[in-house]
């Protein structure tokens, strides 16, 4: 492929609809001009919200409070299980409660810079603006954030930031925020504003006359395939990190909702932007089903090091200071152990690749708290990280108060997702995407404590405004119901897809294929990518996918609970997404944030962007075959910030 072929095509569908005017006034301008739906008319509109994590639960609850009829869907037994619950560290907000120089524009700048200038400026500015409302909202709901003795909110600093703007609830911030949103959603379920469909999975999107008309779901308890019609559909279905098989995502996280929307015409943006989290527990054995993350907040007080000598065999505490390499402090003096995630991850990988790794498999680096315990006392360290230390001990069988933790990077978050405009609407009118399922705010790399912020911003403070703007023109117009032939056709297609998995009657389980696919993607489209590897992946994945179609074995039937069958459907979609990820990574001939192409790096081994040719969002259009997807581009421009090379030295 030459540069010329890489030139993106422009496309009328990719209108970001960013309001005109100064950056700081765009959101106000939008709100001042958005169309409203009269309170008495809101109940005439049905909105479907798929997913009940931070973005989904907050959107469903707020839309129902406003008066819309909301149907909420989750494949879990309860909305409270969504994977937002596992976020540990915190949530950013430009409150400047610490008086340390924070402001909306500084949070904006940090987020843009953290995203390596590959996010949409106007969305990020809005995110920074509404961040302050999120904290107010969550405190009013009773989220027990950490407090100072005087009763005011406490903050800490987080990777990639020089101010303390992160709010937290011990090491369970995601849990407490999700429970807050879940409780607000539950109130609406109790009041009848939201109908909840639990253990119910989206299997397709229905598009009629170019507009999202509803969804088709499969009831996981009965296997029944059913249609649901609505005036608007919101996908808040999370990210696709489980494409790697081993990741920090929960076992059931999957890309099916976003992928099925993509196949029905929604463009998929920047699939190659995946985030590797630097502080996870290294893989211990071959049965491992997932990796566990230790909150990045640990890097506030932990020091990261490896022995200088690759043949070191002594236990950590016997290695003298002079023979330790505190590599993040050495390489990035001003940020030290708080350098951004991608930078810290690659630094660790380079040392492990050189043989300086620690642990029985030499596949980790130390995260050492002995200095913090000496400086602050064990009590303070326990107060800040007690539950994380316990969690580590449970998994690794070692006590981090006595011996340093061992950590290694793992896939954690996906910045790519469904392309959305300023209103969070996909290229299918009436179909919205929120939270990790969309692509817009976090660019090529997400800073710590910004995923919770983005999910809640979208659900609480953006969608409720933009959805009314989209619905107002539909007032008193009829929309297709579930008896429309297109619903029946899509339902039949979904039924035959699931019957198809059972009827292959091959020899390998869905997990086998998932594991094999994950290995290819991790090896060639993981922390570092290069042309040869990506081309290899693009040739290997279709071969494995063919084997999947011929040799899959799903036992049991399509009626009643069948987790093997659920998994087959999800792995099928991961195959197609995996191909698109590799294509996207190959086409992006630069390094940016989490996308690190070995060919494009500075002399110091840092990511080298190509702003002249790649300062754009790649948005892929489905053409019937993942290998033949068409690449479109939305150009990115930066009004207030100079495109600059990130420097965390």
């Amino acid at each position, binding site marked *: 492929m030459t540069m010329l072929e890489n030139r993106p095509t422009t496309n009328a569908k990719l209108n970001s609809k960013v309001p005109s005017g100064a950056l700081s006034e765009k959101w106000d301008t939008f709100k001042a001009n958005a169309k409203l739906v009269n309170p008495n008319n809101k109940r005439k509109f049905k909105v479907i919200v798929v997913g009940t994590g931070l973005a989904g639960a*907050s959107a469903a*609850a*707020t839309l129902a409070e406003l008066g819309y009829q909301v149907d909420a869907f989750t494949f879990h*037994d*309860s*909305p409270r*299980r969504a*994977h937002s*619950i*596992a976020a540990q560290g915190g949530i950013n907000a430009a*409150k400047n409660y610490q008086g340390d120089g924070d402001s909306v524009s500084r949070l904006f700048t940090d987020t843009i810079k953290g995203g390596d200038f590959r996010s949409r400026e106007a969305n990020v500015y809005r995110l920074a603006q509404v961040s302050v*409302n999120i*904290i*107010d*909202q*969550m*405190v*009013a709901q*009773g989220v*027990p*954030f*950490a*407090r100072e*003795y005087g*009763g005011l*909110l406490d903050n800490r600093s987080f990777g990639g930031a020089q101010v303390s703007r992160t709010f937290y*609830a*011990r090491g369970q911030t995601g*849990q*407490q925020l999700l429970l807050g949103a*879940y*409780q*607000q959603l*539950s109130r609406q*379920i109790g009041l009848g504003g939201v109908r*909840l469909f*639990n253990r119910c999975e989206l299997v397709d999107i229905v598009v009629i006359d170019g507009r999202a008309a509803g969804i088709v779901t499969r009831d996981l308890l009965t296997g029944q395939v059913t249609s649901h019609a609505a005036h608007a559909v919101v996908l808040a279905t999370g990210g696709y990190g489980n494409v790697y098989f081993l990741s920090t995502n*929960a*076992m*059931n996280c999957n890309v099916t909702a976003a992928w099925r929307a993509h196949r029905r015409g929604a463009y998929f943006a920047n699939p190659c932007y995946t985030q590797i989290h630097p502080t996870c527990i290294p893989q*211990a*054995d*071959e*049965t*491992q*089903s997932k990796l*566990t993350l230790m909150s990045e907040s640990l890097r506030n007080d932990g020091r990261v090091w490896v022995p200088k000598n690759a043949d070191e065999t002594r236990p950590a505490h016997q290695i003298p200071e002079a023979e330790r390499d505190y590599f993040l402090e050495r390489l990035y003096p001003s940020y030290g152990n708080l350098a951004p995630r991608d930078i810290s991850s690659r630094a660790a990988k380079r040392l492990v690749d050189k043989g300086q790794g620690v642990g029985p498999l030499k596949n980790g680096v130390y995260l050492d708290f002995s200095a913090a315990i000496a400086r602050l006392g064990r009590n303070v360290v326990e107060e800040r990280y007690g539950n994380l230390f*316990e969690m580590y001990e*449970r*998994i690794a*069988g070692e006590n981090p108060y006595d011996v340093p933790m061992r950590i290694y990077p793992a896939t954690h978050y996906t910045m790519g997702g469904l392309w959305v405009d300023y209103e969070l609407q996909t290229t299918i009118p009436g179909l919205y995407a929120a939270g990790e399922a969309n692509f817009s705010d976090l660019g090529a790399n997400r800073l710590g404590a910004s995923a919770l912020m983005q999910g809640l911003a979208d659900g*609480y403070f953006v969608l409720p405004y933009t959805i009314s703007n989209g619905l107002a023109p539909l007032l008193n117009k009829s929309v297709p119901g579930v008896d429309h032939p297109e619903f029946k056709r899509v339902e039949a297609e979904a039924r035959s897809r699931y019957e198809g998995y059972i009827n292959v009657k091959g020899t390998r*389980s869905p*997990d086998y294929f998932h594991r094999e696919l994950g290995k290819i993607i991790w090896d060639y489209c993981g922390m570092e990518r290069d042309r040869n590897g990506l081309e290899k992946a693009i040739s290997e994945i279709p071969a494995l996918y063919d084997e999947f179609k011929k040799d899959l074995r799903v*036992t*049991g039937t399509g009626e*009643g609970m*069948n*987790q*093997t069958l659920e998994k087959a459907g999800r792995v099928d979609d991961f195959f197609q997404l995996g191909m698109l990820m590799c294509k996207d990574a190959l086409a992006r001939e630069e390094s940016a944030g989490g996308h690190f192409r070995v060919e494009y790096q500075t002399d110091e081994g840092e990511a080298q962007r190509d702003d002249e040719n790649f300062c754009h969002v790649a948005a892929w259009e489905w053409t019937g075959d993942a290998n033949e997807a068409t690449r479109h581009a939305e150009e990115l421009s930066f009004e207030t910030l100079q495109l600059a090379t990130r420097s965390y030295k």
Partner: protein
Amino acid sequence: MSHTLSNLTVKVWRQDGPNAVGRFETHVIESITDEASFLEMLDVLNERLISQGKEAVVFDHDCREGICGTCSLMINGQAHGPQRATTTCQLHMRSFKSNDTIVIEPWRAGAFPIVKDLMVNRSAFDRIVESGGYITSPTGGAPDANLIPVPKPVADAAMDSAACIGCGACVAACPNGAANLFVGAKIAHLNLLPQGQAERYRRAEAMVDTMDEHFGSCTNHGECSAACPKEISLDVIALMNKDYRSAKFKNRKELSRN
């Protein structure tokens, strides 16, 4: 350092549906590393069942890091197994020895009907939260967060209760199938905070009444707290009872004014 366990006998509950007759099925795991988690041991068993053309054992699980509350197994008669303060997904095979027999059952409680094999329906918990387990605060009207100071000890106590993951181990461990620890934890979380005062007594009454529709009665065995993977203290039940009792007077007075 890792070791390999050999010859584990696993007796696992199989039940085809809510109304089907259940049975124990016995499998032998010839060898497995003790670094594996308990659920990874079940993954290995399921891979083997699929390769034999049999249906995999259905069990609930998701985050596998002890926070989502989805996993739910009775292991040798103990909710979440033998390790203190640990969910099933965080339990590792290093808690077992070679030649052990491990009996795996679903939660057994009247309010949690079995869906299939080891999976149960815990929706009754959601119904309780829907009846009052929240602070009414519609989006948009919240005052600045620091306008509501919360003394640190109060915030800490609320957080201790809010740590509940809603797994249902308390109910499964209770000889009466009572949900008092779960409900007490939510009531304590919200009723301790200044933000929760406006609805304090209404909340206590509504949640307890809904609880009573589904679950058994508490007779202070304390098994719930012993089984709780988040070590929620029995104190929350005392606070719930106190607020419920007060609610019966206060709410009546309030009603008489209306």
